[in-house]
C-alpha cells in the first residue's frame, strides 16, 4: 500500500519535472511570465512530493516493513532505530531518492535570489533538468519502492562494518556538498543561456561554493577518519579510485574559490571561471558515476547496478550542451580588463589555478589509468600510490609557496622590490626555524616542508602584526580592524589549517613504522624504543557477537598505555556475507597514535599482532578542522 503511494508520488514528481522543463523552455523563449510561473510552481510541487516520498521510505525503514525490497535488503530485525534511518543512504535506491530530495530543496531556494531576477528562469531550468534526470532514475531504473512477492521474516541487514557513526554521517555530508555544486553550475550555465553580461552569477554562487566546499571538506575528512579507524581500508588516504573521485571536485572547487576573487574584484578571468565551475560540476557527476557503476575496481566497491549507461548519456548530453552554449555565447563574456603585471594578485591566482589543475589532472589520470591502458594495450595497468606522491609533492611545494606570497601581493601592479623586502624577515626566521628543526628531524622532505610551512606562517603573522600596529596607531579598535580584514584573516585561518594538515601528512608518512609480532600471555617484547606486554586475553559473548580481546601494556619513554584490540565475530543474522569485525585499539596522543591490531589467535596459546606507530596524525585532523572552521567563518561573514 505505502509502496504504491511512494511509487505514485515519484511518478507524479517526474511528470511535474517534465511539465516544469517544458514551461521553462517555452516560457523563456516567448518571455511568458505565466509559463515561467508554472515552472517555479512545479519545482515546489516536486519538492513537496519528494519530501513525502522520503518520509514514506523512512517510515517503511523504521517500522521494518519487509514487503519493500529496499527495506528487506538494508535492514534487519536487530538493527537499531538510528541505523534504520541511516539505511536511507546505505543502498543505491535510497541514496538516489535522498539525492533528488536534496537537489529539489536546493533548486527551490534558487528563486529566493531576488537581486538577480533576470538570471532565475534559466538557472532554475538547468537545475530542474538535472533534478529530472535523478527522478527518472528512481522512477524507471532503481525504484526505492519495489515490492517483494514473498515477505521475508527478517531482512538482510546492514553490514557490521557499516553500523558505525561515520556511516551515519559521512555519505550524507558528501552528498550535501556534491549536490550543492549543481547550483553554481546552474547559475553559470543559466547566465550564458540568458546572455547575461554581468558578473552576477559569480556573486550569487559565492555562498553556494563556500557551502559546498565546507561540506566536501568535512565529507573527505570524515571519510579519511573512517578509513583510518577501519581496518583494511589503507589508512587515512590510499589513493583509491573512490577516494580520488571525491577529491577531484574539491580540487576544482578550491581553484574556483581562488580565481573567482579575480572576477569579483577586477572582473577578470570571466570565461575561465565558467569553465572551472563546469569542471567542478562534471567531476562531481563523474565521481557519482565511477562509484556507482563499478567501472574501476576499488577497495570501497559500492552497490553496483545498471545506472551506468544512463549516467553516460546524461553526462554526454550535459557536457555537449554546456560546451555548445559556451562556444555560442563566449563573446559576451570576454573580460574587459587585462592583466597588467606579473607581480599582481591576479597573476598569482592564475598560478594557483594552474597547480590545482595539475593535481586534479594527475589524480584523474591515475584514476582512469586502468581504463586507458586496457583500451590501448588490452592490459589493465594500475599506478600505485608512488605515482601520486611523486607528482604531487612538487605541486604541493609550489602551492604552499604561493600561499605565502599571494595573499600579500596587491591587485593590478605590485612592485617587486617592496614585496621582496616584506618577505625578508619571514625568510630569515624560517631558515632559523628549519635549523632548529634540523636538530630533531633528519629527513630532507620533512625539513623542506618545515621551511616552507614556517615561511607561510611568518608571512601571515607579519601581515597581521603590521596591519594592527598601523591601524591601532590610527586610532582604530581591535574589533574594527578584525571586521575590516575579516575575509583576509579567515583565509589565513584556512591556509594555516592546510599547513598543519600537510605537516601531519608528511611526518606520519615519513616517520610511520609498523611491526608484526607474536606474543603469549605474560610475555613482553621490545620494539624500537618502546616495550609491549601482553597482559591477558579474554573471550566474551554478547547477544549479537562473540568477542576475542586482548589487553596489552605499551610503555614508551616513561608513559604507559593500555590497549584493548578485539576481534568480533557476529552471530549469523540475516544474510550477511560479512560477520567478522576487527576492532583496532588506538591510543591517540598529540605526538603519536598507537594503532594496534589483534590479527589472530594462533591456537597454540600465542597471539598474532600488528602495531603501527603513526606520528603526528593528530595534526592532520586538527588542521582539517581549523581549515573548515575558517571556511565556515568566511561564509557567515558579518560585521563583528
Amino acid at each position, binding site marked *: 500500500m505505502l509502496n504504491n503511494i511512494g511509487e505514485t508520488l515519484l511518478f507524479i514528481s517526474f511528470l511535474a519535472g517534465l511539465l516544469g522543463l517544458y514551461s521553462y523552455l517555452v516560457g523563456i523563449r516567448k518571455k511568458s511570465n505565466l509559463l515561467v510561473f508554472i515552472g517555479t510552481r512545479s519545482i515546489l510541487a516536486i519538492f513537496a512530493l519528494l519530501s513525502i516520498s522520503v518520509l514514506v521510505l523512512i517510515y517503511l525503514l523504521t517500522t521494518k516493513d519487509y514487503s519493500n525490497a529496499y527495506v528487506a535488503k538494508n535492514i534487519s530485525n536487530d538493527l537499531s532505530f538510528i541505523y534504520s534511518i541511516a539505511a536511507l543512504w546505505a543502498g543505491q535506491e535510497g541514496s538516489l531518492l535522498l539525492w533528488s530530495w536534496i537537489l529539489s530543496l536546493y533548486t527551490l531556494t534558487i528563486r529566493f535570489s531576488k537581486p538577480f531576477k533576470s538570471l532565475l528562469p534559466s538557472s532554475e531550468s538547468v537545475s530542474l533538468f538535472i533534478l529530472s534526470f535523478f527522478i527518472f532514475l528512481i522512477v524507471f531504473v532503481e525504484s526505492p519502492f519495489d515490492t517483494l512477492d514473498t515477505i521475508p521474516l527478517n531482512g538482510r541487514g546492514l553490514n557490521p562494518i557499516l553500523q558505525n557513526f561515520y556511516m551515519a554521517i559521512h555519505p550524507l555530508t558528501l552528498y550535501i556538498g556534491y549536490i550543492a555544486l549543481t547550483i553554481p553550475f546552474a547559475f553559470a550555465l543559466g547566465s550564458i543561456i540568458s546572455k547575461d553580461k554581468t558578473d552576477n552569477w559569480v556573486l550569487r554562487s559565492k555562498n553556494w561554493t563556500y557551502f559546498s566546499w565546507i561540506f566536501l571538506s568535512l565529507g573527505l575528512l570524515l571519510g579519511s577518519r573512517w578509513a583510518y579507524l577501519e581496518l583494511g581500508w589503507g589508512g587515512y588516504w590510499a589513493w583509491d579510485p573512490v577516494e580520488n573521485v571525491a577529491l577531484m571536485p574539491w580540487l576544482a572547487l578550491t581553484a574556483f574559490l581562488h580565481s573567482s576573487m579575480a572576477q569579483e574584484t577586477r572582473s577578470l578571468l570571466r570565461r575561465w571561471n565558467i569553465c572551472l565551475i563546469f569542471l567542478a560540476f562534471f567531476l562531481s557527476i563523474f565521481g557519482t558515476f565511477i562509484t556507482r557503476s563499478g567501472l574501476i575496481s576499488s577497495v570501497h*566497491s559500492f552497490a553496483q547496478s545498471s545506472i551506468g549507461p544512463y549516467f553516460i548519456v546524461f553526462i554526454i548530453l550535459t557536457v555537449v550542451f554546456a560546451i555548445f552554449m559556451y562556444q555560442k555565447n563566449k563573446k559576451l563574456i570576454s573580460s574587459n580588463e587585462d592583466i597588467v603585471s606579473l607581480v599582481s594578485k591576479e597573476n598569482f591566482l592564475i598560478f594557483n589555478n594552474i597547480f590545482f589543475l*595539475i593535481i586534479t589532472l594527475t589524480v584523474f589520470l591515475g584514476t582512469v589509468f586502468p581504463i586507458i591502458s586496457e583500451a590501448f594495450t588490452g592490459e589493465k595497468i594500475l599506478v*600505485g600510490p608512488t605515482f601520486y606522491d611523486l607528482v604531487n609533492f612538487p605541486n604541493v611545494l609550489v602551492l604552499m609557496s604561493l600561499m605565502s606570497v599571494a595573499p600579500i601581493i596587491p591587485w593590478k601592479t605590485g612592485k617587486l622590490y617592496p614585496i621582496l623586502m616584506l618577505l625578508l624577515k619571514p625568510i630569515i626566521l624560517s631558515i632559523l626555524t628549519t635549523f632548529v628543526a634540523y636538530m630533531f628531524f633528519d629527513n630532507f622532505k620533512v625539513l623542506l616542508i618545515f621551511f616552507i610551512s614556517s615561511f607561510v606562517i611568518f608571512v601571515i603573522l607579519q601581515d597581521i602584526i603590521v596591519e594592527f600596529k598601523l591601524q591601532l596607531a590610527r586610532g582604530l579598535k581591535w574589533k574594527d580592524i578584525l571586521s575590516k580584514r575579516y575575509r583576509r584573516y579567515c583565509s589565513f585561518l584556512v591556509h594555516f589549517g592546510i599547513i598543519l594538515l600537510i605537516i601531519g601528512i608528511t611526518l606520519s608518512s615519513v616517520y610511520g613504522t609498523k611491526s608484526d609480532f607474536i606474543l603469549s600471555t605474560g610475555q613482553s617484547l621490545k620494539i624500537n624504543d618502546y616495550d609491549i606486554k601482553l597482559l591477558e586475553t579474554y573471550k566474551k559473548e554478547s547477544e549479537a557477537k562473540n568477542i576475542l580481546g586482548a589487553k596489552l601494556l605499551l610503555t614508551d619513554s616513561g608513559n604507559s598505555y593500555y590497549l584493548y584490540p578485539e576481534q568480533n565475530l557476529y552471530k549469523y543474522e540475516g544474510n550477511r556475507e560479512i560477520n567478522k569485525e576487527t576492532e583496532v585499539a588506538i591510543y591517540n596522543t598529540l605526538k603519536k597514535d598507537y594503532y594496534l591490531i589483534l590479527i589472530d589467535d594462533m591456537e597454540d596459546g600465542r597471539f598474532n599482532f600488528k602495531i603501527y606507530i603513526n606520528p603526528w596524525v593528530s595534526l592532520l585532523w586538527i588542521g582539517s578542522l581549523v581549515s573548515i572552521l575558517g571556511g565556515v567563518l568566511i561564509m557567515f561573514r558579518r560585521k563583528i
Partner: protein
Amino acid sequence: MASPKKKIQIFVVIIALFFSFLIYKAVESSLVYYLTVSEALAEKSSSRFKRLRVSGIVEEGSIKKNSDGSINFIITDKVRTINVQYKGEVPDIFTDEIEAVVEGELINTTFIANKLFAKCPTKYEDEAYEENKVSFVK
C-alpha cells in the same frame, strides 16, 4: 618586452612540459599490472611484470595459518589456481569464496603478497553480488 599575458603563456608551457615529464616518470616507476589468475600464470616467465596485482576467488577451505603469523590460501578464476602466501593484517571480509586482490610477486608457483584487498565492504546488495559472481565465472 612581451606582454604579461604572453609571459604567463610561456610559463604555462614550461610547467606543462615539466609535469608531463614528471608524470611519465612517475607512471613508469609505479606500474602495477592487474591480471586474472590465468593471465598471471601464462605471463609468469615474462620479466616485464615486476609487480603484479592478481584477482581471484578464494577457494573454499584453502586458508591456512602458519606458525610465523603468515597465511596461505589459493585463489582461482575457476580455470587455474595460484597459491598465495601473505603476511600482515587481514581485511575483515576476507574469507572463503570472496573476491580477493593480492599485490606482490609471483615466484615459481607461489605468489608472495604484501598487500591483500578483499572486495565488497560497501556492497550491500544481493543481486549485484550475484551478478558479479556470474560475470566472473563467464
